[in-house]
């Protein structure tokens, strides 16, 4: 086991390297962008408390995504309290994110609306692939499934998204976020 100082320095490095990736991950998946502050704060808090379980630095990002995924699930259930930790980050977000929603490019809104119509697993595989830039084997670690399952999912998700985009050529007037629209569970 590493000494306290080594351990802390390691956590600092992991935080510095992964903060933005986790912030982006959270922002892509919450209804209100400033909620990402709470998700990021909670994710790193859980990571700190469990940091002795954290894998080597090179693999820490996937582990953190896994933590963030569970924190997000809690967030979407409404079970997560808004923590004090994220308060200042949340406040800063509000200022940094002050943007006219009308300035969003309609094409992007169309694609996000289409993503929102996919089931959760298909959407997550696409987002992890194209927004987080993860390989199928990495996505498999985050989602705790077999890499082969990810490849199959990715192929199917692409096909479904193409179908939806083909059906829906007109951009919507306003879409807040992909997570704002709940997709029906697959196969039901």
């Amino acid at each position, binding site marked *: 086991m590493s000494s306290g100082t080594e351990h802390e320095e390691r956590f600092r490095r992991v935080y510095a390297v992964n903060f933005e990736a986790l912030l982006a991950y959270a922002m892509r998946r919450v209804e209100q962008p400033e909620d990402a502050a709470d998700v990021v704060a909670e994710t790193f808090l*859980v990571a*700190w408390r469990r940091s002795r379980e954290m894998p080597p630095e090179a693999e820490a990002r996937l582990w953190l995504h896994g933590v963030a995924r569970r924190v997000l699930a*809690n967030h979407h259930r409404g079970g997560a309290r808004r923590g004090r930790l994220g308060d*200042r980050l949340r406040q800063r977000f509000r200022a940094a994110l002050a943007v006219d929603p009308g300035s969003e*490019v309609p094409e992007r809104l169309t694609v*996000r609306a289409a993503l929102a119509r996919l089931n959760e697993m298909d959407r997550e595989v696409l987002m992890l692939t194209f927004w987080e830039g993860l390989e199928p084997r990495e996505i498999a670690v985050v989602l705790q499934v077999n890499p082969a399952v990810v490849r199959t999912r990715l192929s199917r998700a692409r096909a479904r*998204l*193409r179908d939806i985009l083909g059906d829906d050529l007109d951009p919507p007037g306003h879409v807040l976020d992909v997570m704002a629209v709940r997709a029906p569970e697959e196969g*039901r």
Partner: protein
Amino acid sequence: MTDEQLDRRVRDADPYRPEVVAHLDGVAQNLLEEIMSTPVLESVTEPPGQRRSRPRRRLMSGLASAGIAAAILGVVFGTSILKTEQPGSHEASPETNSTSEAPGTTTYSAMVLKAAEENPRLLIDQPGWKATHVDGFAERAGSITYSNGGRSIRMSWYQASEYDGRYKDRLQISKPESVQVDRWPGHLFRYSEREFEVILQPRDGSMVEVRTATAYTRADFDRVLASVIRVDARTWLAALPAEIVTPERLDERRAAVLADVPLPPGFDPATVNVEGVNDSDQFGIQVLGPVGCAWITEWTRAKKSGDDAALRRAADALRSSHNWKALQQIDKGGYWADGFWEIADTVAAGKPIHPKMFNPCNPEE
């Protein structure tokens, strides 16, 4: 549309805006310091004789550190520990606290120790006192009630900035009388012949009120005050009775609370954070509340999606809450469990939730 075109469209639709990070102005670094000032779950066992004062963290003034600091603010506890571990305990001045040692190997996280060392810690150096109620330790204010037979004393603490307002308020009650509690200056106020309060002046960012919670003669209250001492962090932590859930005990106690509780699909208990130091009722509430909320949410989801099997599982789980041991124990101490069971039964029966009904998804209510 080719795969390549589709992939590009998805990439272009990424809502993340990298320029946001440039506008955070050091907030990310502050967050890191706050996170790292909270106790880690894994304990550090230090052999006797190797304890040392750890270097102060540069940015301990963050919100979280304040919360932890308040969590460790001082109190009164059973003194069998004191009698054996702190001979000559009045020597435990703030200057000597960080290096004074309690005998025996004690297991605390470094963060908890450090936070404790930075705060006043008061104990009653008399046998028989025990913490019977603890709340609010995760915030900048909190209280503990200590009982000894039929007598109780409540100690509350607040931010130092509250001192002036509280002191002025008490001037309406009675004339202040200067007192000292283990050389800590304060003022005593008399509510009646049997009810007294001492307000201790701000120290290390906090102030403390010591108030009689049962009838005392002035002589009795003076005797208790005279035996209140300030001790080192280890002695204070060691004096916490087993029923009190410290950050060190969080994992173990959370597992115990959830031992007979079915968990909703995908529910990770590790995401349920219970901050600070809590008595077992408060701890149980903070652990079981999110579980109840998650089952209600799962029931609602299952209902909406027509998932009958999941709906049955959620209803069964909610009904089973009547048998959850930790919830039954909470019931002995208050009405929280009744509220929990009311909404659990309502949801399980498919009845609508009245907006004024207690709801674990709105824990602030």
